[in-house]
């Protein structure tokens, strides 16, 4: 019986401790110490929030670099439906999708004839992958340059600037943040309307 009493008291006390006190304490500290990160690493342009540098966005226009295929939501990059395609390697749907995307990509990027980087036509795990591999960005340079009417070299320079190496030279893989790169584009080579 004693254990039952302890159970009830412990459930209440420990729920308050770990369910309320702990997250609120962490929230307070996080807000104080890392305000920007704690609130989602939002990116503002002219005082307007255009997104989060960590959350990928859907890009379809030729003048923007396109992110990876996304299985989040119906059109992709739906932040309320994060997730991957969950298609297995022997799934007909996977192969069909890659083939379709490949055709589309070749059509949109006639200037690019090299091999297709692995990440470019595979959907990400979160569906919100903010990054591309440098090679995948490179593959789109010609198209973006044409769409913006600037030499490929200047676009290439922007890409190189936005390319992050491995974190501290050690962790992860080299990558390019698509939203930030596209913001750079708009800033440096605005599209003439």
């Amino acid at each position, binding site marked *: 019986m004693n254990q039952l009493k302890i159970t009830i008291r412990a459930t209440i006390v420990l729920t308050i401790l770990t369910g309320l006190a702990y997250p609120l304490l962490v929230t307070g500290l996080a807000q104080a110490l890392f305000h920007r990160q704690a609130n989602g690493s939002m990116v503002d342009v002219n005082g307007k929030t255009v997104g989060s540098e960590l959350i990928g966005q859907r890009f379809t226009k030729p003048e923007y670099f396109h992110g990876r295929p996304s299985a989040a939501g119906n059109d992709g990059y739906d932040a309320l439906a*994060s997730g991957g395609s969950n298609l*297995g390697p022997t799934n007909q749907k996977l192969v069909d999708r890659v083939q379709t995307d490949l055709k589309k990509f070749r059509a949109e990027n006639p200037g690019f004839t090299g091999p297709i980087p692995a990440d470019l036509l595979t959907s990400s795990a979160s569906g919100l992958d903010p990054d591309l591999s440098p090679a995948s960005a490179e593959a789109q340079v010609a198209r973006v340059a044409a769409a913006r009417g600037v030499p490929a070299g200047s676009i290439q320079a922007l890409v190189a600037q936005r390319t992050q190496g491995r974190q501290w030279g050690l962790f992860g893989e080299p990558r390019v943040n698509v939203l930030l790169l596209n913001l750079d584009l708009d800033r440096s080579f605005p599209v003439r309307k």
Partner: protein
Amino acid sequence: MTANGIFQIALYFLVLLALTKPLGLYMTKVFQGERTWVHRLLRPFEVALYKLCGIDETAEQHWTRYAGGILLFSIATLLVTYLVQRIQQWLPWNPQGLGPASPDLSFNTAMSFTTNTNWQSYVPETTVSYLTQMIGLATHNFFSAAVGLAAGIAVIRGFARHSAKTLGNFWVDMTRSLVYVLLPLSILGALLLVSQGAIQNLHPYAKVATLEGAVQTIPQGPTASQEVIKMLGINGGGFFNANSAHPYENPTPFSNFFQILLIFIIPAGLTYTFGKMVKDTRQGWAIFAAMSILFLAGVFVTYPAEQSGNPILTKVGIENTATATQPGGNMEGKEVRFGIANSALFAVITTDASCGAVNAMHDSFTPLGGLVPLLNIQLGEIIFGGVGSGLYGMLLFAVLSVFIAGLMVGRTPEYLCKKIEQKEVKMAMLSVLVAALSILGFSALGSVSHFPKDGYINPPGATTANLNNNGPHGFSEVLYAYSSGTGNNGSAFAGINANTPFFNTTMGLAMFAGRFLMMIPLLAMAGSLAAKKQIPVSAGTFPTHGSLFVVLLVGVVLIVGALTYFPALSLGPIVEHYLMQDGKLFSLLLNPGVVWG
């Protein structure tokens, strides 16, 4: 495989190795009630909790009372979580105004978090409020880890003590787990994750206008605080659906490194604690070595399998070879910032342990790459494993190894100076049996059952209609689900739509069996061992600290695991591997007619 990939894996292992002893030593002191350097700061807090909960710090418990405490506490907190989900619409911190979760889903989720499984049938962003996340789910991340840690310590005491009736006090062990281990590490870890970009707020979801003019709703919430304990407590239930692949949970490669380190540090440290408590640290290192061998073996099957990619896609025209500017390999379901090496490493670690968090979608792994996580779970998540449960699971195998092979030295088998007799063997076999029955039995049900379409039990009709893939891969989804449930892992071949009353209920039962029908026999074994006399070590004693024992233990784990699940695996990932090489594809076939022989 790239040189950098191998380097990152090696670096990870070395850091883990370096942390094992200090953390193990710290936990030994904590659970033996000795002073540590944080004593002044945390002891008053510990004492206050005893007072508030009415716990007598000095009372010792027989294993039955210890187990009773675990069950009572688990059931009580399970009820709280069930209730919170059902009434979240009336509670605060629900900025999105989410309604109640269905009864079967609430049962599944409550069971899932109570059992340290954190299988998520629900889509967090659209199902649970911030309050539910905090007091219904995040609390369990602490509780189930603390319960596991306490049970692990109790089992260690079973081996360490002799001629003793008791195994310690559950309430004290649990409180110490929280106060000295889980909470302090979580607070520091959460801040580190926030510094990398993980979010921590109570704002409503952010609506932003994208560059192309669309509206994107970005979920917010107290993520980091839950994220850190999700890893440290080896729970794995993500704040977001995409789990640790989500940039708000796991924003950078370093946060990723930190997360996988959090998964393994407690179980790795426990091997040292074990050695220390049985007064022979070599015994702890032997267990650590066996775990490390199995861990690295898994990594070096999965990593090359993923790096060599999908030959079918290669044929279509995707570059499979890694270069300096792109990762190559099988990138379907993986994030660019993690690439192949970190995704493979994460998948192996999360299933070696009973974590279940994912930073890549296992469902899209190559067959061999996916085979390893599946087998890791089926082996019982004993490769470092869950908090506490990993160690006692491995000790179960040690007991079995000693029993089977130990006879070959011509003595009644002994482990750590305790005779392994009927009771120990019975309890060990019971655990193995329950796991096999649950995984195989439920998978059998899940792969051939039919229910009325649009009915209550399973609206899609046939259980196979819940799958996202057909052929062997579809079978892998079912097998993985019940392995994950029984193993209290929580990761998934997530294409399966398991949010139906049939799957929610059967998964709930599998999770219960995998947690408590494993933990309680082990506590019974510990109780029996604690009561035994200690036999002095002699030249005739089976040595359990050397390389021979490590090899034997690894062999028994692999053979017992392989023998039990090899037939099932051969119809899943194994055959799929060969079919993929042959370029065979499967389209989704709904409601296949069952052909009985």
